[in-house]
């Protein structure tokens, strides 16, 4: 049974390889937000442009165990926090990962499934691909799904989470800003418009809350676009971060709002994942 859940989205900067400083930023945001659930951006604890340092900052993770090394400082946080870091898998492969942590202990790990390796992105060179998507129990009876940046641009993943019953999809991103000359409706970058379109469409299609934490700051000439969002289950934007500078967005996940969004249309009730799976198989698209 869901109960109202105060949440926050922290739009943070991060410095590559400066683990202590990044942890301090996350801890400070959690202290200021003072909510049961806080979402931070992709690789919020390690920085993004790691390249060959990926293996250096990677750490092993195990459900129920304390976060290792400098990340153990997150034990001082009273609520749940979703942080981005590099997991060193049992196979010694580094994974771009989101970790749901409670009092410094690992509650859930979601690896990034789609690694952008085109244009300015080179993640396939440094990270292994995740192979599984699993919603996880959040405080107050909510069921959440986690996606990392590029994963949000593959709508099948949001579909899987929605079909599995997720009420809220948490997206952690390190999306660069593009198109300063065109500008955006709500900020400096035209590129933020696409993210908002995807977030609002996802929320409206599946009647779920969408939380998007995109980072800010500059690495290697690239400005990260900010523009974090909280989108309600009807597709309306509840809160929006600016395109520059850290920010803290607040909202309360409301079960009554969720129920209203899922009436009178019953897309969720009538959806048939088995049909989708069968047709993908029949068309030779799914082994």
């Amino acid at each position: 049974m869901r109960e109202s859940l105060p949440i926050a989205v922290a739009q943070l900067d991060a410095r590559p390889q400066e683990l202590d400083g990044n942890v301090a930023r996350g801890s400070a945001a959690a202290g200021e937000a003072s909510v049961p659930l806080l979402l931070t951006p992709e690789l919020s604890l390690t920085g993004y442009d790691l390249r060959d340092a990926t293996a250096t900052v990677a750490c092993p993770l195990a459900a129920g165990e304390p976060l290792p090394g400098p990340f153990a400082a997150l034990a001082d946080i009273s609520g749940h926090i979703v942080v981005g870091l590099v997991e060193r898998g049992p196979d010694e492969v580094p994974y771009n990962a989101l970790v749901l942590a409670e009092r410094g202990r690992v509650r859930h790990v979601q690896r990034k499934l789609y690694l952008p390796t085109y244009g300015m992105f080179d993640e396939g060179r440094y990270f292994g691909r995740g192979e599984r998507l699993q919603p996880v129990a959040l405080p107050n009876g909510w069921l959440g799904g986690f996606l990392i940046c590029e994963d949000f641009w593959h709508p099948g993943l949001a579909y899987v989470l929605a079909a599995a019953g997720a009420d809220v999809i948490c997206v952690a991103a390190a999306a660069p800003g593009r198109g300063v000359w065109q500008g955006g409706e709500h900020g400096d970058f035209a590129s933020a418009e696409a993210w908002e379109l995807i977030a609002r469409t996802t929320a409206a299609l599946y009647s779920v809350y969408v939380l998007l934490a995109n980072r800010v700051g500059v690495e290697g000439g690239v400005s990260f676009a900010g523009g974090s969002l909280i989108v309600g289950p009807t597709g309306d934007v509840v809160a929006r971060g600016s395109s520059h500078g850290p920010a803290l967005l607040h909202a309360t996940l409301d079960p009554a709002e969720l129920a209203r969004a899922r009436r009178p249309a019953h897309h969720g009730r009538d959806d048939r994942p088995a049909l989708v799976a069968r047709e993908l198989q029949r068309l030779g698209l799914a082994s």
Partner: protein
Amino acid sequence: MVLLDAAAPESGLGYEWCAAALGRERVLAAPAPGAWLSVGTASKTTLLLASPAPAALFPLGDIYGSALAGLCPPWNPPAPIRDLADAAGGPEALDAALRRWADERRPLPEALAILPAPAAALVRDALFANRFARRHCGLVPKLSSRTPGIDLWE
């Protein structure tokens, strides 16, 4: 940081960028004892079509020359760029064609089709001649959808 070509009109904008990012005391007009990074004032037009003097940082390198001229007139291109712009019908026409190729990702013949045929040939040759230099240019802060040194690898 040492600003190359401090006399150029756009050097003022380059100086302000560096000063805002790093502090005025770190931006010099000439090399001084000790370590320093060179800063070039080349525009995106120049980085695409010519080989400017090497520099570690091109803070204006994702701004087309015609736009840069609007920010800090007068238009001050290197001689080869001026010749290409004259053939194209002006700096705006030249940059419009480059924008079609670099930012809109149109195939090169389609991108240059808006230029007079002789100008299109000259621009095509200049792009080809400078393809290695623009892959290894210095750090360019990203503003557009494709930026030399970051995600423009043709």
